[in-house]
């Protein structure tokens, strides 16, 4: 395996890990902001209308930012009725074929997200609510996360090829 590819896999895998660690601590942000909402409304009687909406934005960031790490670590459910019986090489071969599914889906998501984000920036799109936050920041973040997921998908393909050629995975 060329050194450039090894470097690519190492870099992308590490980047997914960093972004994923930030994502996983967002659970405490959601928890805190929702608790704040419950307390301010019931205990001190000072309702904060933006809390739930802020938590919704955090949830979107949470699973988009966690996307690449969970791809890398194979956290996504598979229907492993037959898949489970294959050898590691068999799995790698099948994964290599069906990686098309993953990459096509992520590609269509990427196109859609870019066009939606450009629209949000051009028209200064805002969410219709009392808080009325702009939509561009979360959309830009989503585009970046999808790009990272595509990069991670390619890294998975490289690793599959390495398994097939019986090379050490970088």
């Amino acid at each position, binding site marked *: 395996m060329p050194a450039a590819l090894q470097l690519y896999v190492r870099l992308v895998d590490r980047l997914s890990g960093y972004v994923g660690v930030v994502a996983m601590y967002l659970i405490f942000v959601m928890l805190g902001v929702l608790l704040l909402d419950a307390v301010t409304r019931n205990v001190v009687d000072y309702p904060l209308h933006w809390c*739930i909406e802020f938590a919704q934005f955090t949830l979107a960031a949470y699973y988009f930012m*966690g996307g690449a790490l969970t*791809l890398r670590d194979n*956290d996504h459910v*598979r229907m492993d009725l037959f898949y489970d019986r294959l050898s590691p090489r068999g799995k790698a071969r*099948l994964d290599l074929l*069906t990686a098309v599914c993953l990459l096509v889906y992520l590609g269509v998501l990427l196109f*859609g997200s870019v066009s939606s984000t450009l629209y949000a920036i051009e028209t200064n799109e805002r969410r219709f609510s009392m808080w009325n936050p702009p939509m561009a920041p979360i959309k830009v973040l989503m585009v970046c996360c999808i790009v990272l997921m595509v990069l991670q998908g390619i890294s998975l393909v490289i690793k599959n090829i390495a398994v097939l050629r019986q090379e050490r995975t970088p």
Partner: protein
Amino acid sequence: MNDTSIALVMFGGMLALLLTGQRVFAVIGFVASTAVLALYGTGGVEIPFSAAFKLFNWFPMLTLPLFIYMGYVLSESGIAEDLYRMLHVWFGRMAGGLAIGTLVLMVIVSAMNGLSVAGMAIGATIALPEMLRRGYDKVLITGVVQGGSSLGILVPPSVVMVLFGMIARQPVSQLWLAGVIPGLIMAAMFILYVSLRARANPALAPTVSDEELAMPLGEKLKLLRFGIIPFLIFFAMTGLFVTGFTSLVESAAVGATCATLAAAVKGRLTLTMLHQTARKTLGISCMFLWLILAALAFGAVFDGLGAVRAIERLFITDWELTPWQVVIMMQVSFIVMGMFLDDTAMLVIVAPLYVPLVKLLDLGFDNQLIWFGVLYTMTCQIAYITPPFGYNLFLMRALAPKEISLLDIYRSIWPFVAMMALTIALVMLFPQLALWLPETVRGR
């Protein structure tokens, strides 16, 4: 090609690709994306992405990561070990006492968490090894843990009902209340079954020796204090929600906080534990959310093809089914699909087809959709534990002690599937079993 055959090709293509073992979300998203491009050209390219904002607007979805987090914290916190010790002493003398105690433990855990993961983790790591050590029959107790933990989605709080409520536009509090009585009936059936089996063949479940249970009454009563924390968590979460003090998502946050506090009280709260819990929560949450994202895109294309009307035409005009036959057909198709499809994917793809149809049917009572939500949740329970594809089966295989083989797991579930089917039949025959409690609470 007409719309119906496009829909069939999409569905068939999805099932075929799923068999390759590619990630389920990628397969569903791929079929949706290619269908969008084939049907609407580049104009439809935003459809899969816009599903993210449909998901965004479903704010009850916030409960999902919170409940997953809470489940992991509960199983790490040591609350379950204490509870198990208490149940062990109190039920020890009954035939099959430990297995019955495990079922009671499962009901208590179900009342604290909205998924079956927590019950599964606690049952497989705490109850199973203990029962194996005492010579309980492994097939029997494997079934007990599988069946018992699946109650997590029927007894409130329930994440499956949150999802159903979003799709069917029904109040979640009513759905949760509707699950209480069927859940307790099912639990009672499980307990009766275990005690009958143990009485008929004591070798399956040896009783605990007397000296182990010899304990002054004062000590025994003192053990009851272990029930206090779970009760407080249940009250803080479901109680505050049903009485209207906290909203649904807030009560999930309250529950997650209570579980964290309980772990702190027991001295189990460390930075390492929080880090690992956050990592596991991210894994399961991302799995669910990406699956729902892909399934929403799939559902949007299906909707555009008019699949609801096609199914309605098939059931009502072509096959001339009566309303009750339609409901039975739906349940059977849920169970069959549930064996092969992930239940979240099933809900997001199939429920939008069935829910409008249920609304149209005249079954002769009110709140049909609440009732249907309970039926649906119970079919999900069956889907969770039936091979080849069931969450509880996978979790069990990952968590159970080594001497329990896959074959044991497969053999253990059938009596429990039969009892679940019996409960479904009961709730169909007597809809008030599900509807009485929510109607009474609302009427107040």
